[in-house]
């Protein structure tokens, strides 16, 4: 009886197939031949479509100016890309544990990410921070937290990327350098990077922490300090990625990202540094979105544009200055909570584009990011995606395997041309700083984001699980949900409160006074921050002191006064 019912059901299902729809689907062809950014493509590309005339001048071999094909001659034969995962969860101790897990699983780099409170420059005991400490990353309030985070990780061996983007990157560097010093490392040997791109971070919800002049000042302080003291350190990762996540197109990502990079470079030149002192230390964070060829073309165009700008506009002589070094983070905004396992496939395609584009360092999103912070299983899946790419697929054998394709070269030219057009547009409103100050760029982002939503709404862009092939919403997340233990936050807040009661007040005040004087005198603030952090000055205290000198409220949220008055 039961069997009968089951077979009835199968029969029933088959008879419910819509055969008209089947026929339609059989003969279906793509509705559009546009790239994600909206560029109409031809049916086929031929030698006539090559815009770049001169191979040597416009393309060149990998490792040769203008580096269109890659910054190293033999690319991955020399070394795999760095396989990173971003870690930041709960307390410094929780984060340390997850980082160690990623290393155990074969990760070759470490990215630790700050939580919203740290990025905003708030201590864990700030009244607004209590609900959010450790929720989206790690909060470092004092040097003690940095010590816990570092633990026994060998700082001269691992490539550590500190993802603090806002003006809090200055305290981050101070805390990191102070901890490294206390552990006996020569800071000149430290390898890794700090994101330190406060200008762009105003677009990620951190405007109170990132006023434009303070962003340029503190961002450039970190860059200048590291140029002089930490030759192996990459001290800015200009974040094109976050701009892309706002909804802009591929060439806009390049144009606005390079525009922001130049804000810092112009300041470093004003400070008397030569382009070849800082050029080799600039790195970029690039998105890899879902349009495979367009993303590869975008990366190649960005490489060529950077090389030319550095050589022609800034007068770089050193080839290393002209090399566009970049990390890719697969596009978080391309992932969806609907049919979440599909995200694993999206991430894999995006990672493949990054590798074919010649990436130096790759972070794959976890499939569960549209639902929660990455679970351990999610992290592992993302890391394995990279490892399959690196060890199984053979994509590492040849540099720029798509170079010379009529289509790819033509699309590279197209993206470059469009990006240059967007840069010209910025110049026309008075340059990047002006475009930011007048909120011209804000309006740009807003209108692009609305356009992206409309494309989904009207079906101009098809996304599986959203406007095609929908299914019943899931009720569970396939590999579980990451929860942040609230106990960690409570503990962190308690420790910070305790520290503030027990530290040597006199030593602290003296160190803060030196920092204030240096800021007033227009000196680089990092050395004084390092000393103050050793005296247990906290993130908010370091930043607040400099903020006041620049005429901003001590507390970015405007509710606390300086304790040093």
């Amino acid at each position, binding site marked *: 009886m039961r069997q009968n019912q089951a077979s009835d059901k199968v029969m029933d299902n088959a008879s419910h197939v819509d055969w008209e729809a089947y026929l339609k689907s059989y003969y279906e062809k793509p509705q559009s031949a546009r790239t994600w950014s909206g560029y109409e493509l031809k049916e086929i590309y031929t030698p006539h479509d090559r815009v770049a005339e001169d191979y040597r001048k416009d393309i060149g071999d990998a490792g040769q100016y203008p580096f269109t094909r890659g910054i190293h001659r033999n690319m991955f034969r020399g070394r795999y890309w760095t396989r990173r995962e971003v870690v930041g969860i709960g307390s410094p101790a929780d984060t340390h544990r997850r980082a160690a897990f990623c290393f155990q699983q074969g990760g070759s780099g470490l990215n630790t990410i700050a939580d*919203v409170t740290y990025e905003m420059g708030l201590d864990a005991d700030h009244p607004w921070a209590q*609900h959010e400490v450790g929720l989206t990353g790690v909060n470092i309030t004092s040097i003690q937290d940095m010590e816990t985070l570092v633990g026994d990780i060998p700082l001269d061996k691992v490539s550590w990327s500190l993802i603090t983007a806002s003006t809090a990157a200055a305290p981050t560097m101070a805390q990191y350098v102070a901890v490294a010093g206390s552990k006996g490392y020569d800071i000149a040997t430290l390898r890794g990077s700090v994101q330190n791109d406060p200008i762009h971070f105003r677009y*990620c*919800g951190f405007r109170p922490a990132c006023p434009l002049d303070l962003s340029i000042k503190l961002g450039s302080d970190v860059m200048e300090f590291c140029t002089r003291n930490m030759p192996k350190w990459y001290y800015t990762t200009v974040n094109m990625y976050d701009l892309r996540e706002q*909804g802009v197109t591929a060439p806009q990502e390049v144009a606005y990202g390079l525009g922001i990079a130049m804000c810092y470079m112009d300041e470093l030149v004003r400070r008397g540094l030569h382009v070849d002192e800082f050029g080799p230390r600039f790195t970029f964070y690039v998105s890899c979105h879902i349009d495979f060829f367009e993303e590869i073309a975008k990366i190649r165009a960005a490489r060529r544009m950077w090389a030319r700008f550095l050589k022609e506009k800034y007068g770089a002589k050193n080839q290393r200055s002209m090399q566009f070094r970049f990390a890719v983070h697969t596009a978080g905004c391309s992932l969806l909570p609907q049919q979440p396992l599909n995200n694993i496939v999206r991430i894999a395609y995006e990672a493949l584009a990054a590798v074919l584009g010649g990436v130096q360092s790759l972070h794959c999103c976890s499939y569960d990011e549209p639902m*929660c912070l990455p679970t351990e299983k999610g992290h592992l899946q993302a890391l394995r995606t990279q490892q399959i790419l690196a060890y199984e697929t053979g994509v590492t054998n040849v540099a720029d395997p798509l170079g010379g394709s009529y289509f790819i070269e033509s699309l590279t030219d197209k993206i470059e041309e469009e990006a240059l057009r967007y840069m010209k547009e910025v110049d026309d409103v008075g340059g990047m700083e002006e475009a930011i100050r007048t909120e011209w760029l804000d309006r740009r982002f*807003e209108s692009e984001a609305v356009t992206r939503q409309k494309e989904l709404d009207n079906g101009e862009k098809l996304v599986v699980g959203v406007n095609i092939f929908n299914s019943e919403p899931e009720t569970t997340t396939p590999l579980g949900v990451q929860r942040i233990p609230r106990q960690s936050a409570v503990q962190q807040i308690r420790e910070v409160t305790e520290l503030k009661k027990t530290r040597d007040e006199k030593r602290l005040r003296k160190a803060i006074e030196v920092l204030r004087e240096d800021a007033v005198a227009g000196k680089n603030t990092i050395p004084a921050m390092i000393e103050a952090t050793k005296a247990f000055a906290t993130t908010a205290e370091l930043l607040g002191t400099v903020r006041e000198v620049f005429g901003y409220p001590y507390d970015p949220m405007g509710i606390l006064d300086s304790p040093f008055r």
Partner: protein
Amino acid sequence: MSKQKIKVIITKVGLDGHDRGAKVVASQLKEAGMEVVYLGMYQRPEGIVKAAIEEDADVIGVSYLSGEHLVYTPLVVEEMKRHELDDVLLIAGGSFPPEDIPCMKEMGIDEVFRGGSLTKDIVDYITENVGKKG
């Protein structure tokens, strides 16, 4: 007697500043003929409810992204109850695991729209449910 225009408060709450989704939804609801009051970032539950009262809002839409939904939802709901806003729809948008949706509804959220929602879904829900609560 029903109101001529649906009035919607769209807001972020807490420190999370991922406001792209909130702004897009605000703009799309306007195009659907609603009057949308956008509060912006760094709102506290008390301020959101005060705005809803002053604007005589029919709907409050809160945008979450960073896992703060379980923390702030009860605070917003409690504040709404304190002011007897029992006929105002409370909807949430953003990133959260499906496991949390029943829990959020139990807390007092009327409907949830995650990433990948189409404007039509949100507009239809509001139009069909506005004025029916309480």
